[in-house]
């Protein structure tokens, strides 16, 4: 424990210099500005900034990306409150109550509640990150090829199931992502797969161009194709955070923090799920249930705390298992790899200080959003007044730079264009891009784990189902997927109902 505290102290001391503070503030500022613009996601800003930080030292680069990630989600709530359009998907749950408060002339109060909820939520998540990441990293050292196979499959299955409205479409996108990651030379024999003799494809489709396409270009096309831009509500009252309300709604804050962290720990399940689940839990437990959707402080606090607390939690599986918790953390993971840090079970062996550095970075990111929440919210709102027809082409130029800068090859720009146009049409059809991204990230792990596992077991599938950790993952994954089959689901419902009624009857008899 004392060793951990010492590492944390060293990490904090490492960031107490003007360069790091400026990087942190700069990242948070860019993140908030991007978050304020509807549609532009944390994934896009982290991907674009990754290219900017190629020449920056590792810790400052990750600090900048971390602050931009936290800043984007924080900035997204401004748009949800003032426009009734979520700045990012994670802020959708803040729309109903935030906008209702703004329409009543309490926009500043709503922003203040969002700031205090975001601050306490992220801080709660940081505490969980500091506690769970080193513990999980210790457990992850016991993972072998069989466990990683199931973990990758579990991530794609859960992401497909929870993200979006339709699990089948989610799984389809997950499988598509897994397939796209197979294009290029395979990891064991460097054999070309699905390259059709095209040398450029031998290197595969890089994650950053694909992400910039899926989350940036697709959004640019959507915004430019739909020219409607709503009027912003003016902020007349004070935007200062209300920590008195945090104290008043401490149960909501704590519950939402726990729910946000839990959803954050699940691979591939984004911050929006954390926000919605926290909102639903708060509504179920609240005494002012009828006020939800009509300007409930409880509801707004729950949504903001839930989505922000899931950010540090997403980093727990990312750092300790090498499995990203969300699409932005997938880019963050790619950035760590670019900077020479390989997240995964070996991280505590190769870079024992790094997990604590990330904890310090996330804390710093929390402080930066509080600073911006206190002093710079009003000027940032002016970004919303810039017409999309000017803003979006400029963002497109940044997308092109973002896709190109990593390897300096035009092929990546074409890949970004292809993925972006594809994502645009798929989104129109109700397909979510998050499982696709997770599939792309986990494809390599799944492929190597399956083949290595089969070699170790000499072709037997037994160890994939009989090893203790595998049994848990396999049961949860298969059970989750089978729940989609109506016959199986109704049978499960019948069994659950039977169990509940038997327990009730037992208690009634005892009474």
């Amino acid at each position, binding site marked *: 424990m004392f060793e951990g505290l010492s590492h944390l102290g060293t990490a904090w001391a490492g960031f107490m210099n003007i360069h790091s503070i400026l990087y942190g503030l700069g990242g948070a500022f860019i993140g908030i500005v991007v978050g304020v613009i509807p549609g532009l996601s944390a994934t896009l800003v982290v991907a674009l900034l990754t*290219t*900017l930080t*190629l*020449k920056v030292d590792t810790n400052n680069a990750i600090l900048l990306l971390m602050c931009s990630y936290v800043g984007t989600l924080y900035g997204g709530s401004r748009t949800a409150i003032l426009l009734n359009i979520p700045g990012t998907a994670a802020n959708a749950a803040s729309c109903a109550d935030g906008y209702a408060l703004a329409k009543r002339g309490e926009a500043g109060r709503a922003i203040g509640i969002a700031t205090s909820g975001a601050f306490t939520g992220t801080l709660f998540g940081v505490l969980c990150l500091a506690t769970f990441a080193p513990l999980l990293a210790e457990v992850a050292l016991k993972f072998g090829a069989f466990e990683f196979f199931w973990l990758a499959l579990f991530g794609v299955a859960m992401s497909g199931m929870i993200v979006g409205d339709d699990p*089948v*479409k989610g*799984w*389809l996108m997950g*499988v*598509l992502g*897994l*397939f796209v990651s*197979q294009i290029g030379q*395979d990891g*064991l*024999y460097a*054999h070309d*797969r*699905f390259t059709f003799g095209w040398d450029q494809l031998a290197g595969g489709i890089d994650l950053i161009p694909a992400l910039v396409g899926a989350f940036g*270009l697709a959004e*640019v*096309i959507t915004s*430019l*194709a*739909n*020219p409607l831009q709503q009027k912003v509500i003016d902020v007349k009252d004070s935007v200062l955070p209300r920590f008195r309300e945090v104290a008043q709604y401490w149960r909501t804050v704590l519950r939402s923090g726990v729910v946000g962290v839990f959803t954050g720990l699940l691979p591939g399940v984004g911050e929006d799920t954390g926000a919605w689940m926290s909102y639903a839990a708060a509504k179920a437990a609240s005494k002012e249930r009828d006020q939800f959707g009509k300007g409930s402080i409880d509801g707004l606090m729950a949504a903001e705390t839930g989505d922000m607390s899931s950010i540090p939690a997403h980093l727990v599986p990312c750092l300790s298992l090498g499995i990203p918790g969300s699409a932005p953390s997938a880019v963050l993971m790619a950035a760590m790899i670019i900077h020479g840090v390989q997240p995964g079970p070996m991280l505590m062996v190769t870079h024992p200080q790094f997990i604590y550095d990330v904890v310090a970075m996330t804390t710093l990111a929390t402080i930066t959003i509080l600073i911006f929440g206190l002093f710079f919210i009003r000027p940032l709102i002016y970004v919303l007044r810039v*017409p999309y*027809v*000017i803003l*979006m*082409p*400029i963002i*497109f*130029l*940044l997308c*092109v*730079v973002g896709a*190109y*800068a990593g390897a*300096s090859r*035009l092929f990546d*720009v*074409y890949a970004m*264009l292809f993925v*972006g*146009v594809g994502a645009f049409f798929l989104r129109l059809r109700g397909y979510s891009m998050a499982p696709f991204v997770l599939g792309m990230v986990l*494809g390599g792990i*799944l*492929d190597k784990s*399956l*083949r*290595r596992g*089969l*070699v170790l077991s*000499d*072709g037997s599938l037994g160890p994939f189902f009989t090893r203790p950790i595998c049994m848990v993952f396999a049961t949860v994954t298969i059970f989750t997927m089978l729940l989609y089959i109506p016959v199986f689901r109704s049978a499960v419902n019948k069994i659950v109902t039977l169990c509940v009624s038997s327990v009730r009857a037992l208690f009634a008899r005892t009474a």
Partner: protein
Amino acid sequence: MVLGIAILIGSLLMDRLEEQDINPYTIPGLLPALLGIAMTALGFLVFIRKWTRFKGVVAARAPLSVDKRTAMNRMLLVLGICVIFCAGLLGRGLPYWLTGGVFVTACILLLDNRRRAAGEGRFTSGKIVRAAVIGFVASIAITLVFEQIFMIRLP
């Protein structure tokens, strides 16, 4: 579904590297083949669901409304501009500030909805200059920041 079947066929036809005497459980096409099967099954499920939902509803497709046609034209215009910029302008030896500036200017001029809503069909010289100033200032700023400050090559 079609993609799934294509992936499955591609995986089955993939070289099994027998001449390298590799372990048969590590053939490169193993996971892609399984993914092809999964994609076919899921695609089939989506197809069946959609088919069941629309079974018996064989209505003649209504002609597109004016609003929808305008939206469709705008979407095609946006896609066209993006594709022309990426595939036609980039990598042809022109500097990024120039191609970027032309792209942003063209977007502002062609997609400005307020101009169309006001019934102003023609581009006035004032509007062209304004669009060009915004486009080139943004493009030059991006080029300077990335190339000069962060030392990153641009296409």
